[in-house]
């Protein structure tokens, strides 16, 4: 599968706390923009991939945009853990001849819609009977629990989490499409903000966004004829570790060794590159604490060194590993991580608003803590 397929089109809607259009309309707009970016007619689309949490299904999308006969469609579970897997599934389908033009997308009105954790009748992967009665209600509580343990074991501090929040905010301040474009963040704002679930404060949590994004995938051969510069899927992986329990992974032998470790092993095994070759990273940031955990999992540093890795501006432009260069889920938009994929593509095209000079390789990751996925993209 190595470099056999390429992302040749990306598209998105505006991002806002509230958009007037439906999720279905937003999905169609993002997909049609991505196809236009690729220079591919909607009638040529014969493959779709999205998240199980996506509420607009393939039937609705295909007939609205005017897709042709569709021969591959797939949905990936576990919320934001499925982001990169949508592209991975299309890449596998195209590489094995099941489809020729694939579209992956996510459309979500999480900004103006209900907070999912408020619906207590929906069962998470691990039944809620073991957590909800005790008031462990929200993803912030579930990840806050792992964060506290991580801080205790490795001496990580709130300043380390602030380093993550600041890097994302600084990049958002360069990106006119970002919800936080005109909203700088200071250390004082961070340290005095309200708690959500101690040790996580407001700025450790991602945004709540209405918006949609899409990308178009074709074979490497076909990619050469497209309108935009191809960005190749060099390696792709999913990860569901042995004895994993979902976001509430407290029952695994080693809860701080999450799905990132499993996805990373597979990702690097099939790549010609290693972590030191990565020019820029788009790492899933529903919460700041996922960054140190992912840096360790994907091999940028050793176990327990993820927090220290963020020191000295390492995640800023010009640092060791520029991070989430459109602002990420923390400061551009939270659309289950799909904006990390499109920003990875822009970096390798050389069109990011926070461009890393000569960026040729980009790691994109999906939600850590849940069964996850990752992509290694190259120009």
């Amino acid at each position, binding site marked *: 599968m190595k470099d056999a397929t390429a992302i040749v089109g990306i598209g998105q809607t505006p991002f806002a706390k509230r958009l007037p259009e439906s999720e279905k309309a937003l999905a169609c707009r993002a997909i049609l923009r991505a196809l236009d970016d690729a220079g591919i007619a909607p009638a040529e689309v014969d493959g779709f991939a999205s998240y199980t949490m996506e509420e607009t299904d393939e039937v609705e999308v295909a007939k609205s945009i005017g897709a042709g006969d569709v021969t591959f469609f797939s949905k990936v579970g576990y919320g934001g853990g499925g982001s990169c897997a949508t592209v991975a599934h299309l890449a596998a389908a195209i590489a094995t001849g099941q489809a020729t033009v694939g579209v992956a997308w996510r459309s979500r009105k999480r900004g103006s819609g209900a907070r999912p954790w408020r*619906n*207590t*009748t929906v069962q998470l992967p691990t*039944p809620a009977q073991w957590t909800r009665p*005790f*008031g462990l209600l929200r993803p912030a509580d579930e990840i806050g*629990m792992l964060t506290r343990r991580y801080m205790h074991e490795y001496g990580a501090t709130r300043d380390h989490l602030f380093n993550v929040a600041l890097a994302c905010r600084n990049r958002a301040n360069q990106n006119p499409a970002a919800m936080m474009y005109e909203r700088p963040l200071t250390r004082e704002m961070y340290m005095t903000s309200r708690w959500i*679930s101690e040790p996580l404060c407001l700025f450790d949590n991602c945004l709540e966004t209405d918006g949609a994004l899409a990308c178009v995938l074709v074979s490497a051969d076909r990619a050469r004829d497209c309108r935009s510069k191809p960005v190749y899927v060099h390696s792709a992986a999913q990860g569901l570790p042995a004895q994993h329990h979902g976001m509430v992974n*407290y029952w695994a032998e080693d809860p701080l060794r999450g799905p990132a470790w499993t996805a990373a092993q597979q990702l690097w095994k099939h790549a010609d590159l290693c972590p030191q070759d990565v020019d820029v990273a788009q790492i899933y940031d529903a919460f700041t604490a996922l960054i140190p955990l992912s840096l360790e999992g994907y091999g940028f540093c050793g176990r327990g060194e993820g927090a220290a890795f963020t020191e000295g501006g390492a995640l800023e432009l010009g640092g060791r590993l520029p991070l989430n260069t459109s602002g990420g889920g923390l400061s551009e938009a939270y659309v289950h991580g799909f904006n990390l994929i499109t920003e990875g593509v822009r970096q390798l095209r050389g069109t990011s608003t926070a461009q890393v000079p000569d960026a040729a390789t980009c790691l994109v990751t999906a939600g850590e803590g849940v069964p996850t996925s990752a992509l290694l993209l190259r120009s």
Partner: protein
Amino acid sequence: MTDEPAGPPETGLLLPVPDDDGAPFWSYAAEGELRVQTCSGCGTRRFPPRPCCPRCQSFESQWQRMSGRGRIWSYVIAHPPLLPGYAEAAPYNVLVVELADDPSIRLVGNLVTAPDAPLGPLADGKLRIGAPVRAVFRQLGDGERRTAVPRWTLERP
């Protein structure tokens, strides 16, 4: 907002909704016993409960009684926005406790000053990783929905 039965008025908390695998845990909890599913084939304890043993694949299991002693493995202090019953109690602590009998078994719960005390943050310094705790049981609900949840008190308050 929710179809789940609410707890008693003084708490308004969510009651556990057991699945087939978890039901014995809650039956024992209603009797004030903390029991963990244990493989009849190889003796390995497992939590959360599930139909077969991930080590030896046996479908036979028993429920072993634990001493109720444990240590705080981690905790959070939850602040709003929260569901109504919990927002009234906020800020409150939520713990993960590792059992003294088998530290590989960890349970989510709350640290309280007495079995019937409301949820709350607890005084600074009292709540720390590694602190020894002991299980107590709080009765919730009534009639057919009567149940009990394990809570935790400090061994050295």
